[in-house]
């Protein structure tokens, strides 16, 4: 493959003039070929300018759009969080200092939302990733119709959030709901999935689990397929059975991938919004009649756009950011410890 590409590059008119343009050498920006001979000097200057500027031009859209709609608003959110900004009177913004934060951090609803975000995150992420590893392990066997299995496992991912949540809401309904009906067969009394604390949190988590398990399974499957076979073979030669191979070869080799999925799922869990909003129906933004599944994302929406206190909503957003940063730092420390212990 390389040779044919070299052949393509051979008839370079000025190969001797630019030693840096040797194929495959990947020399500096100026080394990548020189303008064809006979071009006027302004053309060659244009060419050199093109070489220098084009990388920045190519990455510019990302940084400009992200800057305008991500970074600058991030700073403005901090600014607004120090102001009294009401939805009803957007033109009157008065300095409030740290009032929004004081107000927020002394509010039970904030801590309730933080706690809910944490518990829902935990009971959705942990089973989801464990099941994903199990499914990936099964899909890693030589299967009939392996692609069909993979596509089927990923189908929930292609279901819209709103649709999935509406269906699960009906499945979990108090009377006539499919799940309580099935539970009745195994002798369990009907559970009020929307009103009870743990029931509603479990229900919301199950929607997340349903939608994302297959996606994570595919990521694990990819990592499993990259594990060299000889590791398994030498483990087998040492007398390891299948479970021991899974435990002592697969899991350690999967560690970076597991870490990656944990980080991604954690970020996803802190931003949980659509599922609890729709699961709650009319009291969606409150996270149920007793705020029993109000997440931080919902709390911000409720304070900002239902109650209309945008300054407080900004303070919630920044508090979320600070929490994420703390989580990230803990993650980093844990990773380092893991690496050292390896």
């Amino acid at each position, binding site marked *: 493959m390389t040779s044919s590409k070299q052949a393509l590059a051979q008839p370079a008119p000025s190969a001797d003039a630019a030693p840096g343009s040797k194929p495959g050498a990947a020399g500096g920006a100026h080394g990548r070929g020189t303008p064809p001979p006979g071009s006027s000097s302004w053309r060659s200057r244009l060419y050199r300018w093109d070489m220098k500027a084009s990388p920045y031009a190519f990455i510019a859209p990302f940084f400009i759009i992200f800057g305008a709609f*991500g970074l600058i608003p991030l700073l403005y959110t901090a600014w607004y969080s120090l102001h009294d900004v009401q939805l009803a009177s957007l033109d009157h913004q008065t300095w409030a200092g740290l009032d929004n934060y004081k107000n927020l951090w002394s509010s039970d609803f904030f801590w309730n939302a933080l706690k809910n975000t944490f518990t829902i995150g935990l009971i959705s992420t942990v089973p989801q990733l464990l099941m994903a590893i199990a499914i990936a392990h099964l899909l890693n066997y030589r299967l009939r119709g392996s692609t069909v299995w993979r596509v089927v496992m990923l189908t929930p991912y292609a279901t819209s959030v709103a*649709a999935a949540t509406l269906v699960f809401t009906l499945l979990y309904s108090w009377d006539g709901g499919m799940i309580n009906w099935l539970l009745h067969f195994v002798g369990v009394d009907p559970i009020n999935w929307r009103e009870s604390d743990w029931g509603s949190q479990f229900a919301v988590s199950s929607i997340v689990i349903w939608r994302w398990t297959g996606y994570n399974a595919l990521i694990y499957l990819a990592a499993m397929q990259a594990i060299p076979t000889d590791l398994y073979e030498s483990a087998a030669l040492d007398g390891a059975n299948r479970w021991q191979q899974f435990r002592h070869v697969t899991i350690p080799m999967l560690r970076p991938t597991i870490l990656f999925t944990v980080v991604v799922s954690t970020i996803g869990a802190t931003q949980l919004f659509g599922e609890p909003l729709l699961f709650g129906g009319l009291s969606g933004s409150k996270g149920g009649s007793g705020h029993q599944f109000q997440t931080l994302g919902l709390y911000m929406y409720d304070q900002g756009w239902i109650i209309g206190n945008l300054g407080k909503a900004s303070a919630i957003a920044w508090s*979320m950011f600070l929490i994420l940063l703390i989580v990230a730092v803990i993650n980093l420390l844990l990773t380092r410890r893991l690496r050292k212990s390896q």
Partner: protein
Amino acid sequence: MTTSDLTLPQAEEKVKGDGGAGTDGRGSRRRVLGAGKQLHAGPVTYVVLVVFAMVSLAPLLWTAIAASRNDQRLAQTPPPLWFGGNLFKNMQAAWDQAGLGTAMLNSTIVAGTITIGTVVFSTLAGFAFAKLRFRFSSTLLLLTIGTMMIPPQLAVVPLYLWMSDLHWANHLPTVILPTLVTAFGTFFMRQYLVQALPTELIEAARVDGANSLRVVWHVVFPAARPAMAVLGLLTFVMAWNDFLWPIIALNQQNPTVQVALNSLGTGYVPDQAVIMAGALLGTLPLLIAFLLFGKQIVGGIMNGAIKG
């Protein structure tokens, strides 16, 4: 990749080979039957997979069943387990009540534009990060990846205030613009192009006097096409499902599908069968795309994971 995985261990086996019993690759392969992926799945594996597959598909199937019944039947125990005859009537009702026509059109425009923007911009930036040398490139790449940590909630209040200042609220560009680029896309394309685009090919084009735009058009885009398709599908799904910003930026008169379904779900007199019909309609475009391109999406997620 699989071939090298398969041949290498065999060679090692020969070196390690014990007592010359299995000196040929096949012999030693048979001796280590326990080795992970070589195994054929047993019946237990199939049973467990069937259970998981049913859990994956059952809610969707049941959506269709519920959508074809009527509200009274849905409230009874046991819940209906087979189709009724009201599917089209309910779909019609959902279509009218939630304004799904506008919503579908809006979602198609929004998700389509975001997809095209994300794919093109990600390919350009990914190409620069993968193959071009420029000052601060690694720092900028790190910055790009770092932005994935920032939750969208952090931008929402100022964006809303500015958009209402500009009287842009309820207009589609308001939803499109902030999501037009993603760090994930940029990183995804970079990872792909590092391997899939031979540097010599770019150099050959350069030597022929092609400027950067020609290189992008004639070399980078063709080489990136498979990954662009996958990123496009992933982005479309993400954009179609986006919730937080559309629900703030758009009102009920000009909704996306998710916003419309939300209003259907919070209606004061909910007819569950109609809601299910709406849910089915709202997810149908994604499911059709998935039926057509499921294999590519699966492959794309797996490739992205390996190289990431």
